């Protein structure tokens, strides 16, 4: 069977499984719809949380980023896992004890204010849509490369599936499909990693393999990689190129941002008890760590294989994967010296970041671009970092079924995250905006109906993001984490650990964190993107890391302002005492 047919079978089977689970676990009440009836086993919840958390970015992009960033890539590894420690120790058990449906619920009640609830809802919707847009790009890439469906139909199929189980099943349907999606995605991630680890180092455990010696010599893989990358003009693979302060701030912003992301927090509302909330955070991190400790190994293998298989090759003899990805525009070759041989080294192949393809073939048959060549260096290769995980099995010449599996895994990762986010968006609209703010008199049945409508509308908007991808997706990811770190996390933390924090302090804190962080990011990403480099950053902190400073500002402002206003009312202090008791 061809790889193409296998891919259809794998993807088809996995989709059938998700739909079957959705039908089996329909939501019957608002509690089912928002928090799966609070009856999810901690291990199941851990898996669902892991699938919810590991998006197309984790599955598809992260190892590729690490492959090209080397040690700098650690910011993602530590940042996207360390946040779970904060979540488990500082937030999850208390929010579960509080026992409501949404994150704005907590903020609205704790700060006895509709304004605080609204600020939280706005941040939450912004963060969630930013994220969903990224998932849709992932779905589009997988469909267009592996199923040869055009991106638009791919997105529509993906949306159809999510629509079915999110609208029908709510949190309950989503949770159980996410358990299945976790199994699919982790299997799809580990199988090729194990294969490649055995091929390159003879060690079947990728986490150990990338610290092992290469099969045919006594040289360590990482030493060889350091040597090769240095020779090609890059910084050595195991060295940082970013400054220590920047690495520190980015890692911190990602960690605190993770702990403040509403779609992650809300998962801990679905388990039966406080004890289970703690345990479930632990299981979630185990399941996440399985992928996150494999990713740096995959990154190192991919970089090595990539260089080995194309360097100094005649274009006419270039491997099939190279031409496949070139045909969909994610690889480009600019034959600067017109010798027909591929040369890869540090620097840009041409000016402008992305290739603009024209409808012409060059002397060797390569696709030509209209970009002017960048002659300051000898590099002839443009490669989109997003393709490394998907291309890796082909680069390593693994069998067709492994490649098909990876396609199904990539879709599982994108769909599970999209569904979780859509649910957060719909519950914040039907529950926080309608039920708790504008239309308090609606019945539970009506609320459930509005929740389903909101989910449907959110899916359509997300689909539009996928079909007409806004050019700013990559830029706004920094936003999502920065804002979560600078607004939601401090409000939650102070709400639990400080009895004297009042609504004036919390709102002032959230607003100053929001304004500071967004102005810094908007300035460097949109108004003046030319100056987005270390020379102009304040204190050497990049927009990706500024959320951490925003968070510190939020804490300082909140604590300072709260001194001038009265303590929160009696019933709020009672509530704080209640959530602190086991």
């Amino acid at each position: 069977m061809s790889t193409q047919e296998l891919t259809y079978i794998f993807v088809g089977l996995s989709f059938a499984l998700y739909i079957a689970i959705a039908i089996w676990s329909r939501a019957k009440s608002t509690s089912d719809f928002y928090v799966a009836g609070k009856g999810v086993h901690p291990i199941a919840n851990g898996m669902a949380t892991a699938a919810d958390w590991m998006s197309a970015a984790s599955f598809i992009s992260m190892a590729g980023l690490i492959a090209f960033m080397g040690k700098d890539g650690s910011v993602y590894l530590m940042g996207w896992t360390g946040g779970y420690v904060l979540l488990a120790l500082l937030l999850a058990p208390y929010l579960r004890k509080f026992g409501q449906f949404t994150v704005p619920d907590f903020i609205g009640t704790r700060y006895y204010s509709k304004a605080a609830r609204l600020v939280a809802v706005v941040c939450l919707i912004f963060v969630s849509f930013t994220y969903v847009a990224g998932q849709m790009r992932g779905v589009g890439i997988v469909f267009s490369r592996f199923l040869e469906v055009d991106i638009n139909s791919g997105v529509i199929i993906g949306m159809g599936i999510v629509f079915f189980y999110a609208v029908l099943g709510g949190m309950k349907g989503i949770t159980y499909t996410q358990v299945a999606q976790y199994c699919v995605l982790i299997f799809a991630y580990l199988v090729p990693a194990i294969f490649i680890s055995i091929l390159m180092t003879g060690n079947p455990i990728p986490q150990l393999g990338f610290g092992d010696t290469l099969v045919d010599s006594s040289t360590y893989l990482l030493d060889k990689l350091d040597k090769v990358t240095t020779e090609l003009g890059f910084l050595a693979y195991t060295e940082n190129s970013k400054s220590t302060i920047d690495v520190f701030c980015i890692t911190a912003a990602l960690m605190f941002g993770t702990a403040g992301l509403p779609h992650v927090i809300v998962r801990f509302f679905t388990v039966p008890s406080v004890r289970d909330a703690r345990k479930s955070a632990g299981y979630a991190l185990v399941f996440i760590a399985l992928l996150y400790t494999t990713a740096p190994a995959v990154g190192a293998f991919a970089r090595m294989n990539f260089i080995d298989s194309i360097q100094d090759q005649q274009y006419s003899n270039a491997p099939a994967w190279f031409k496949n990805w070139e045909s969909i525009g994610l690889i480009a070759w600019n034959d600067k010296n017109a010798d027909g041989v591929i040369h890869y080294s540090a620097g840009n192949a041409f000016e402008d970041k992305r290739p603009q393809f024209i409808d012409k073939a060059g002397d060797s048959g390569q696709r030509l671009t209209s970009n002017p060549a960048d002659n300051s260096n000898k590099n002839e290769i443009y490669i989109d970092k997003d393709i490394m995980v998907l291309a890796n099995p082909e680069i390593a010449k693994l069998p067709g079924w492994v490649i098909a599996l990876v396609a199904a895994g990539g879709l599982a990762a994108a769909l599970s995250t999209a569904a979780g986010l859509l649910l957060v968006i719909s519950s914040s609209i039907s529950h926080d905006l309608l039920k708790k703010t504008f239309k308090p008199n609606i019945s539970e049945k009506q609320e459930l109906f509005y929740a389903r409508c909101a989910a449907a509308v959110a899916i359509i908007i997300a689909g539009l993001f996928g079909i007409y991808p806004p050019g700013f997706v990559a830029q706004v990811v920094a936003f999502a984490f920065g804002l979560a770190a600078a607004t939601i996390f401090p409000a939650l933390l102070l709400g639990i650990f400080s009895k004297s924090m009042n609504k004036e302090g919390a709102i002032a804190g959230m607003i100053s964190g929001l304004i500071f962080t967004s102005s810094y990011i908007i300035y460097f990403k949109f108004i003046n993107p030319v100056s987005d480099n270390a020379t102009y950053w304040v204190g050497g902190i990049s927009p990706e890391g500024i959320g951490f400073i925003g968070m510190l500002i939020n804490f300082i402002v909140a604590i300072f302002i709260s001194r001038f206003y009265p303590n929160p009312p009696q019933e709020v202090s009672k509530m704080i005492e209640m959530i602190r008791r086991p």
Partner: protein
Amino acid sequence: MKNNPSQSYWKSNIRILVALLAIWFVASFGFGILWSDALDEIRIGGFKLGFWFAQQGSIYIFVLLIFVYVFLMNRLDKKYHKEMSADSEEQ
């Protein structure tokens, strides 16, 4: 008035948090970032130690920390519930 079980529970809880978060900070921001280059001088197999902490070790420690937390808190919860029921029997 003798020490209220809820207050002593909360104090022990904070002590556990501070201790575990200190380890969390040292393992990631310390070994993985601030002292990473110094640790790189030490090698274990093919890994430089600072690099290993940044891409592997810190994550294993995170997982461990959460399970230690679960264990300590469950023990603390039990103690609290015992004290609470002892209190209500006295009354």
